[in-house]
C-alpha cells in the first residue's frame, strides 16, 4: 500500500510500469497494442528509421598522416544527431498510437550495431543491421544506402521512412531524397513538425524563407531537421531491455543491391588555416585597404 503511494508520488501516472492492473494502459507496455480497435490498428503506420554511426559531434576530427582519410581508430563514435531526432520522432509517433512498429536500420561494419542498440534503447522495436565490410564502407555513398533502405522499406512493408537530414561526417544531405526517388514516394525534407491527418501527413518544412507547410499522402519519406524534437537520453534499464530486442543481420547482396564503389578517394587534407585579420583605424583606411586588395 505504501509502495503504491510512493510510486504515485515519485513517478508520473503514465509511467506506472510496476503497478499491476494499470500497466496495460501505459504507452510503452508491449500489450497496450490490444487496447486499440482493429480499425485504428490497420491505419497505424510501420516506421523505418535509418541511423548512422559517426564520429561524435564533440570530437575534434584529425586527418590521417597518410592523407587518405580521418582518424577513426580509438575515437569516440555515436549516433548521428539528426538520426537521434528521427528515432525520437518515430518513438513519439508510436507513443501517440500513430505508428505500430519502429524498425531501426543501420548500414555499416560490425560496430554499427552499437547505434542500433542505442535506437532500440530509445524505443525502437526491432533492429536490422546491413553488414558492409570496413574497406567497402569507406567508399559507400548515399546512392548505395538509399537503394538498400528502399529495398528494406518494401521488404518490411514500412509506411514511413524517417531519416536524419544529413550525417555530420559526410554532410551529404542526399540519402532521404534518393530513397524517396527510388521508392517513388513523396518526400518531406527538413521537417520541423509532422502531424498525421486522415489523408496522410501535414509537414512543416524549414526552408530559407521560413517555414513551408505541405501535405503528403502515406507512404512517404521524411528527413528530420534540428528543431523537430528533443531526443531522449536512453536510461540504463532501457539499454538492458534493448539487448533482448531482435536484431536481424543482412548483407547488401541479400537485398540485391550492388555496392561496388563509384568513387575513389584521392586525398583528404585539412582546410587552409584562416589568415589573421587586421584592425583598421577608420573608414578611409578601410576603403584604401579594399582598393589596394583589388576588392572594389
Amino acid at each position, binding site marked *: 500500500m505504501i509502495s503504491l503511494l510512493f510510486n504515485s508520488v*515519485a513517478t508520473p501516472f503514465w509511467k506506472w510500469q510496476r503497478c499491476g492492473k494499470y500497466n496495460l494502459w501505459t504507452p510503452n507496455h508491449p500489450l497496450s497494442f490490444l487496447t486499440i480497435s482493429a480499425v485504428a490498428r490497420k491505419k497505424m503506420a510501420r516506421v523505418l528509421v535509418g541511423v548512422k554511426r559517426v564520429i561524435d559531434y564533440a570530437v575534434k576530427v584529425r586527418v590521417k598522416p597518410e592523407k587518405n582519410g580521418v582518424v577513426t581508430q580509438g575515437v569516440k563514435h555515436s549516433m548521428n*544527431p539528426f538520426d537521434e531526432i528521427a528515432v525520437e520522432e518515430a518513438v513519439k509517433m508510436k507513443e501517440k498510437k500513430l505508428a505500430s512498429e519502429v524498425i531501426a536500420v543501420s548500414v555499416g561494419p560490425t560496430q554499427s550495431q552499437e547505434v542500433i542498440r542505442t535506437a532500440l534503447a530509445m524505443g525502437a522495436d526491432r533492429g536490422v543491421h546491413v553488414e558492409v565490410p570496413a574497406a567497402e564502407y569507406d567508399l559507400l555513398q548515399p546512392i548505395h544506402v538509399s537503394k538498400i533502405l528502399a529495398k528494406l522499406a518494401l521488404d518490411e512493408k514500412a509506411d514511413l521512412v524517417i531519416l536524419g537530414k544529413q550525417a555530420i561526417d559526410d554532410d551529404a544531405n542526399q540519402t532521404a531524397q534518393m530513397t524517396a526517388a527510388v521508392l517513388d514516394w513523396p518526400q518531406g525534407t527538413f521537417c520541423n513538425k509532422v502531424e498525421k491527418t486522415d489523408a496522410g501527413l501535414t509537414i512543416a518544412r524549414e526552408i530559407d524563407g521560413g517555414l513551408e507547410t505541405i501535405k503528403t499522402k502515406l507512404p512517404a519519406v521524411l528527413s528530420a531537421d534540428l528543431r523537430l524534437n528533443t531526443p531522449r*537520453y536512453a536510461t540504463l534499464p532501457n539499454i538492458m531491455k534493448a539487448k533482448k530486442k531482435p536484431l536481424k543481420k543482412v548483407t547488401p547482396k541479400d537485398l540485391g543491391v550492388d555496392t561496388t564503389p563509384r568513387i575513389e578517394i584521392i586525398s583528404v587534407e585539412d582546410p587552409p588555416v584562416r589568415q589573421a585579420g587586421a584592425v583598421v583605424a577608420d573608414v578611409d583606411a578601410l576603403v584604401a585597404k579594399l582598393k589596394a586588395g583589388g576588392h572594389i
Partner: protein
Amino acid sequence: MSQLRSKVISLYKHLQYLGRDYPGLNGPQKFRKQVHDAFMKNKDEKDPKKIVALLAQGRYLAKEVEALYSLKKYRTIKQRYND
C-alpha cells in the same frame, strides 16, 4: 526499506552512467567523484521521508545533466548548420 535501498542504488548507477560525457577536462572523473561523495555523505540517513526527498533531489540532478547534454548538442549543431 529494501525498496528504498534498491532505488538509491539504481539512482547512483544512473548518475554514474550519465557522468560519462560530462564536458570539461577530467569532467567525467570529477562528476563521478562528486556523486560518490554526495551519496557517501548521506549514507547513514534512516528517515524514509528524508531519503525520498534526497532521491527526488538526485532525480532532479539527473534531469539537469540530461538537459545540459541536449542543450550543448543543440547549440553546437545549430551553430554548425545554421548560417
